[in-house]
């Protein structure tokens, strides 16, 4: 990932509260060490029920949820949480089970990390999700997006790559702005289709692939080694997000 290594947190302000719902004690142990080391305040839950309870009583800033829980299905936990809270959820799931990830994301999870994962990757995902949550809370519309050679002036609907104007069709532009709105987060095919085209096309991902391919050719200097539009095979697309994020 293009995420930089985590910077040490300042100790003066109390860190964000994270509820970790995970049944495997080994994983809890190393996450405990790492997350506390990075300044998070950690609440551990061994089962889905405990996790839901903790989410209600501790008002966390973020929830890390393992999809394979002994009592309640992880997807069900997401649905119940989304019934009353918009708190960011980062899902831990086994690799190779793309369908589970998509289901979790479609159910309302913010992002995922495939097991086994590097700590840096998890921390990066957590940061992106926390920032998006803050932004939603503050409801701030950004006027411009800049990442590397890509510049998008949202107010004037102008897109430049390395200072060169790039002409985008309306759908390509809408696709790009949707990704910018969730920069750094993965968006499933369904979510993208829904936001860009509306409901009728949400089961026809090939429209999306066609336009995403066109968009990639317009804004990436080397489409095979993309810096902005990242493919998450089997799951969806992600805009890399500005560096230093």
């Amino acid at each position, binding site marked *: 990932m293009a995420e930089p290594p985590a910077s040490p947190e300042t100790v003066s302000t109390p860190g964000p509260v994270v509820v970790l719902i995970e049944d495997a004690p080994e994983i809890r142990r190393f996450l405990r060490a790492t997350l506390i080391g990075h300044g998070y305040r950690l609440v551990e839950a061994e089962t889905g029920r405990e996790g839901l309870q903790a989410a209600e009583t501790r008002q966390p800033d973020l929830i890390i949820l393992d999809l394979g829980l002994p009592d309640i299905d992880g997807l069900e936990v997401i649905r119940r949480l989304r019934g009353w809270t918009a708190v960011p959820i980062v899902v831990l799931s086994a690799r*190779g089970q793309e369908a589970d990830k998509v289901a979790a994301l479609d159910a309302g999870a913010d992002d995922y990390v495939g097991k086994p994962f590097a700590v840096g990757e998890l921390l990066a995902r957590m940061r992106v999700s926390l920032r998006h949550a803050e932004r939603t809370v503050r409801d701030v519309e950004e006027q411009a997006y800049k990442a590397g050679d890509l510049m998008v002036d949202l107010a004037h609907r102008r897109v430049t790559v390395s200072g060169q104007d790039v002409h985008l069709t309306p*759908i390509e532009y809408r696709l790009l702005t949707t990704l910018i709105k969730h920069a750094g987060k993965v968006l499933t095919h369904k979510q993208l289709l829904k936001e860009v085209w509306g409901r009728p096309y949400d089961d026809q991902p090939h429209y999306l692939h066609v336009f995403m*391919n066109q968009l990639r050719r317009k804004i990436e200097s080397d*489409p095979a*080694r*993309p810096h902005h539009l990242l*493919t*998450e095979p089997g799951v969806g697309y992600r805009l890399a997000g500005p560096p230093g994020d």
Partner: protein
Amino acid sequence: MSQHRPDPDALLARAKEEEARKTQGRLKLFFGAAAGVGKTYAMLEAARALRADGVDVVVGIVETHGRAETAALAEGLPVLPPRRVEYRGATLQEFDLDAALARRPAVILVDELAHTNAEGSRHRKRWQDVLELLDAGISVYTTLNVQHVESLNDVVAKITGVVVRETVPDSALERADEIELVDLPPADLLERLQEGKVYVPAQAQEALHNFFRKGNLIALRELALRHTADRVDAPMQDYMRDHAIGKTWPVTERILVCVSPSPFSPQLVRAGHRLAHRLGAELIVAYVETPAHARLAPADRDRVTQTLRLAESLGAETVTLSGPTMSDEILAYARERNVSKIVIGKPGRSLWRRIVLGSIVDALVRGSGEIDIHVVSGEGAPAPLRPLRVQPHAPDWAAYGLAVAVVAVCTGVAWLMFPHVSLSNLIMVYLLGVVGVATRTSRGPTVLASVLSVVVFDFFFVPPYLSFAVSDSEHLITFFVMLVVALVTSGLTVRIRAQVEAARQRERRIAALYGMSRKLASVHGIDDLLEIALRHMGEVFSGQIALLLPDESGRLAPRRVAPEGMTLGATEMGVAQWAFEHREVAGLGTATLPGARALCVPLAGPRGAAGVLAIVPADARAFESPEALHQLETFANQTALAIERAQLADEARRAEVRMETERMRNSLLSSVSHDLRTPLATIIGASSGLLDGAERLDSATRRDLVRSIHGEASHLDRLVNSLLEMTRLESGAVAIRQEPQALDGVLGAALQRLETLLRDRPVRVDFPADLPLVPIDAVLIEQVFLNLLDNASRYSPAGRPIDVSAKVAGLMVVVEVSDRGAGFAPGDERRAFEKFYRGHSARVRGVGLGLAICQAIVEIHGGSIIAENRPEGGATVRFTLPLEGYSKPSGLSDG
């Protein structure tokens, strides 16, 4: 003493026999010359002795005939309640076979072996019940009088003048392990009879006059003694064979008995059997089906059938030959089977026929060469010879009409020719007509045409004309010759036709059999096989046919039936089950459960019964001739062999799969155990080093240890993923989700994931800008890129570039991943895709699954993958993905 060694084959046969006997019950026979000698008494005494020794003895059925002493002896022995059978108003008591089988005593007493069971019993004869008891492992004590022995039947009839109908076949008697002769001198027997100890008085007087004459009793006693002596001789011979004493077993002779529809034939068979028994020879009984067979009355045909059945019950092999002349067929068959003696009956043909047509005996003797011919006298045949030639069908009036019409036409033609040709040529016209009739009709109309021709010829063309009178006596010779020529010609024609018909029928059956075996050889599934068997049998045998196969518990169930919807009743299913378990033909027309609607033939192969063929024939008498039954059995055997072959093939296939699985598992285990242990050893070693002495290590060393732990763990992760992926692909659990995707996007995802691995190595991507979307499962194709890039980086030195290119070729996209390493070892390009194959470089670590996984993935996309060395050095893996099936989506506008 000379060096005699027992014949090993004979010893083996005996060992097998004894092995079979161990699981079978023993049969002890109390054998006597006549009723009243005390057989039942002796049997009961023996039973009491057994019971005193603690053996579980049960009285199955014992007939005391109202004799007080016998009844007293039976007291105290447990008795099996008899089965009561209602028969024409009377209640009969019958031996209850099923109760006996259920009770399973060690020894059971079953009196009167020759008894005929009441109608509706499972078996027609009691000896069949006894055989079933023996097969079930129950020992049997039974009694028998000499007049009931099948092969002695005719001798007894000659002595006493009474034909005994209840006989026991010798083959059943040979099952006896022990024979106890119960002997009583005739004078004593007569005394007992007069005292009323044998029959109740009223019957005694009558019996005395008929059967129990002193002369009879003496002769019967001698017969019984001789028969017992013969039987006692058999164990002696066994003993001699086992111990190689004296002469070895004589070369087996074969005796061929020729039978005819004559009532004398059964006697001939018995005579042959006695001869064979005495010589220790094999017995074959043959019937020759000449064209005359077709003209036989049903009663005569039945008699042939009965004779052949009798022969089979005496343990003989029966065969039906067919051909124009009896003697030629017999001699040809005798030579083929190395027969040493032929037994035939004294000819029954009258003298003049013998002179005209020749006798079979003469023909046989002339052609026999080294074969002995025994001619057995038929005098004293129990029934008078019935006329053999009985018109089998009602006369066919149309055929007679045709005969008359043909003669009329001939007369017309002859009338026209009369003024121009001589008389002898007019005769030719009539002969032509007669031959014509013979080719179209049967014997009767042909004879009519012959006679009518002569008469009409006389009337119209022989002077004085229009009169039956003959002026010139020379014409009488003309008439006689004309008649003989007409009769002989027509006779020959009819005979040829009959033979052609018989040959055609045989050919049809053989063709069907051949067709079936050929078809059976070409199919594999059992159901297809049964279908074919059923179809071919349906062509030959008319009726409803069902093929039944057993389930795991050995219960039969119909697997295939013809016609569709045919069902079998409970009785028929019972018969089928019995036939299956006993591997014997049962049901309709046989000795076992003859009342059933279906005839059940076991599908018996070398490994046991595979199932049962049940046929409900359209004509209930269709299988009465042994030949038809044999035919059915031949079909059944062919089917059984095919089923067995299919089952064996199935087993072999399963065994092969098992072996392959086993081989794979071993290869996997050896590969995985090494590959799993090495990183684990590093992880455990390095982490334990950190745990034990973290404070003593400098930070650089600590970092080093942690880095190696991380590296090894990542390696383990890759390995486990490969294994899981391979397993998933192989089990077919992967549901491929093809969507048109941009290949460069997918490659990008793979490159990103391998960022660390490829950090210090340029990857040159050459994808044309207009590369169309390819219908792929992005997750799987990403895996292909991951594996290929991973391989390329591991098999080429650090810093060397990796090239990835794609181009469209026809309806395919061709993708190449190349490195600048050492390339594949010669010949390894193909093996590279085998599971657990690893390149020659020993330093390189991996499971050897990467390319195998790629191949599986590319192939489920409908593409292909090959590996080769580049001319400029290094390895290239090239795979194709089809573009077809993808059409640019319509229905959405960009605006």
